């Protein structure tokens, strides 16, 4: 069993390939997490506009991208758009898909955070002479982010896990590299190794989240 799933010879042979994959997964996460967060920030700020011509399209946009499986979006960009003469490449497709999909999730979380700030605080801030933008930046957002921090972290965990979809469009990230190594060696050890790396990398965040979530629900 150990020979099959955790073969040391295979690990010695494949670790370089896997490690390159880990590097790319980290890089990809560093790009797509801020991208999704930025998308979410734009959506949540727009949600403050009460005009029905902004509100309804915005809600439809968010629900549309929450209903759409991210892999379908990615495949559409990667395999569909070339028919329209638009060949974007795997990396750009991943970036756009994550901006749209994870942006919708971040947007919902941030909106809930912003709505948790009492209107009186905004009135008070404005009456002291702060502008709209200043009120948002210095009064509302810092507290909003703090109030929904567990949800933001939980979503970030999901986004990092989601980078494994990059393997489907041949991005050389951790899962893709592990599958390459597996097909070269005819042995599942590289996949076990990749799973182990994901686990070791994300376990601390999962532990932290489970403690934060328990505390939040217990207070409710």
């Amino acid at each position: 069993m150990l020979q099959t799933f955790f073969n040391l010879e295979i690990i010695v042979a494949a670790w370089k390939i896997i490690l390159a994959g880990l590097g790319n997964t980290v890089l990809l996460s560093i790009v797509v997490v801020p991208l999704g967060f930025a998308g979410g920030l734009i959506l949540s700020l727009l949600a403050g506009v009460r005009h029905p011509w902004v509100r309804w399209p915005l809600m439809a946009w968010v629900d549309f991208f929450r209903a759409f499986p991210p892999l379908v979006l990615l495949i559409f960009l990667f395999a569909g758009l070339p028919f329209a003469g638009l060949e974007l490449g795997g990396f750009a497709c991943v970036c756009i898909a994550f901006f749209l999909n994870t942006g919708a999730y971040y947007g919902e979380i941030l909106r809930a955070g912003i709505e948790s700030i009492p209107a009186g605080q905004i009135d008070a801030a404005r009456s002291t002479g702060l502008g709209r933008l200043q009120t948002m930046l210095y009064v509302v957002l810092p507290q909003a982010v703090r109030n929904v921090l567990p949800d933001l972290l939980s979503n970030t965990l999901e986004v990092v896990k989601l980078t494994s979809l990059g393997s489907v469009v041949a991005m050389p990230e951790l899962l893709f590299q592990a599958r390459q190594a597996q097909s070269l060696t005819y042995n599942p050890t590289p996949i076990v190794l990749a799973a182990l790396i994901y686990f070791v990398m994300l376990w601390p965040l999962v532990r932290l989240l489970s403690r934060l979530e328990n505390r939040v629900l217990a207070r409710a």
Partner: protein
Amino acid sequence: MSSWDRFVETFFNAKVMAKYLPDIAHGMVVTLELAALVIVSGIAAGLALALLRSLGVRPVNLLIVFVVDLFRALPPLVIIVFIYFGLPAAGLSPSGFVSTWLSLALVLMAFSEEIFWAGITSIARGQWEAARSTGLSYGQTLMNVVLPQAIRITIPPLTNRTIAITKGTALGTVVAVSEILGMASSAVSNSYNPSPLTLGAGAYLILFFPMVVFGRWLETRMRWKR
């Protein structure tokens, strides 16, 4: 031909769509079957683990926490790939359908256990004691006092999480499950036209858009009741 016509011809080609509509419809049935299996088995397993955890046997609880953490930390696609491409090395060859079902059910089990557990612990200790002191057994207290309250709190987060995980059925396409995305992708390569993908996207929206709207409605509803 104007560029608008060309766009419609490419992405909304009626002929191609009509030809592959039965395929996509079949894919929709497979997606629905997979989704139903994942939801029922995942949530049932999660609830069972949360109940087991409430018994308070320390070694059992440590194991449960570890399993839950494991399936929260691993990307679903990695689990699918491991089951489908890895397990055959041990003489087991689950189909793509079973691999996808098992993976997503395990992930949903982990997330729902966590949510159910948080719900159970949110019920004040005094309620347990009061119920027990009136003569209710442990099981009766759990079933008649704690769970009815706990489940109410857990419904909104559980719904949203279930939708997010169920959307993962699209991952089955990586291991050759003939669900919507798989059917649409092969139709695209057979017809050299992306219209089946548009059709598939529509099919996903028909399935999941009402669920997302329902989740949003549930969330607001439960919020003002508190």
